[in-house]
């Protein structure tokens, strides 16, 4: 999984779900905080489709954090005001950076992603049901 895929799943997970993944790492690894969780703004850049140019839509409140896990850096930037979650995601990121073959945690993250997808299925079906079926008069 790419960083984008992993971070997307973790960002959408609850703070509790992320804590479950991070706690075993925190229990056995040496964690040093380089940047305490803090609020920041993320300016959203958009490519508009009429002239294919870029503009700034606005800013998203986010929380960022940077740590080392056994001496390897890890970081997080997540939308919202979520200090504990940002710290735990940075720990997971640092652990993944130092353990490229950490299949077990990647598997847990993939399972989390699948459950997020599963949770959206019912709503997606409801939305799909609102698709218009046109009846053309005279045919």
């Amino acid at each position: 999984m790419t960083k984008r895929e992993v971070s997307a799943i973790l960002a959408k997970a609850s703070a509790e779900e992320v804590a479950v993944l991070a706690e075993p790492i925190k229990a056995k690894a040496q964690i040093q905080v380089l940047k305490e969780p803090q609020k920041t703004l993320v300016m959203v850049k958009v490519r508009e489709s009429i002239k294919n140019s870029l503009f700034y839509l606005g800013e998203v409140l986010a929380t960022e954090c940077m740590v080392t896990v056994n001496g390897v850096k890890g970081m997080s930037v997540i939308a919202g005001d979520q200090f504990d979650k940002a710290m735990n995601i940075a720990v997971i990121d640092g652990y993944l950076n130092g353990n490229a073959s950490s299949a077990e945690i990647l598997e847990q993250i993939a399972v989390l992603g699948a459950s997020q997808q599963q949770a959206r299925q019912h709503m997606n079906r409801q939305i799909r049901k609102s698709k218009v079926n046109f009846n053309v008069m005279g045919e």
Partner: protein
Amino acid sequence: MAYVAVTGGKEAIEQSLKLLELFRESGEDITVSCIKENMRLLVDKIMSEAGFYSEEYAALALKQCEGSVEEAVFLLRAYRSTLPRNYYSSPVDTREMRLIRRISAAFKDIPGGQILGPTYDYSHRLLNFSLLEERPDSINHESEDETLSDLSGDDIYCGRVTDLLRAENLLKEVPEDNTEPFDVTSNLLTFPAPRSARLQTFARSDAGFLGGVAYSSMRGYGAVHPTVSELRCGYVEVCVPYVLDETETLCIGEILVTEVEALVPSHTETADEFDKMTLAGGYGMIFGRNENKAIAMSIADASLETEGNTPSQDQEFVLTHGDSLEMSGFISHLKLPHYVTFQSKLDRVREKEEA
């Protein structure tokens, strides 16, 4: 009468602030979470006009100021100014939008179909008195709809309608313009303003002002009565560069946005103009669900591409009078003491009377 410098009012102001708290208090408190969950469109409006996406803080601002939109925008803008901006996102491409609604007024049949999603467009505008008695535990969700099981539960993504028009050469193919956007929050707006400045300004504009500009253009004070090629609402992922490895990006989460592409044929009065007729477009995109604002933005954008003397075609007029904070601040300042300037006006009137 001589001019007199005055001070005072400290105790009265302190009491006024106490009274504000007294008036805000109610016998039935409402939680921030409750506002966030139940007043979603209002929360979206606040975030859009503040240019600051945080559902929780927008709901908090609304609670703090008794639901006043302009005060809530003021609070968020003020708070936002205390935070560092450490990241700029990668460009968001709405082809990757996870859709909850997507319609086209230009074509009946579009790849992916017309998905109505949640909309008030087809609702009867009749007060629903049963909501007076509604309690969380009294909401009766209908039993599982069996027809749903035949439908896919996958996330919904669709290509853009304008991509089809470009494929047919009906809409001009335009190369990517990667010019770094102008940021109206950090730089003084000068005219003519770059396109990026006007789109950012519109995205933050007061919805009512932008609606008025668009309405005036459609009614004849301007020349834009577009066709909505596509209106889509859904979630887009916001990604930032991963500073520990430049080849990677981090997704910080999803935001809900509404996007509109509106198409306008070029002006044709002569046969020559008719032969050269082309399609042009206007673009609208805003935080949250607010379709009328997004449509109005696309009209205002298209209107600024036309020439004329109407307000909607005057860049300086539309870009400097629509900011919620600036307009409410300027109007509000009239409540401040103007004793000296008013005395000056009185003096002039008296002089005229005596002359």
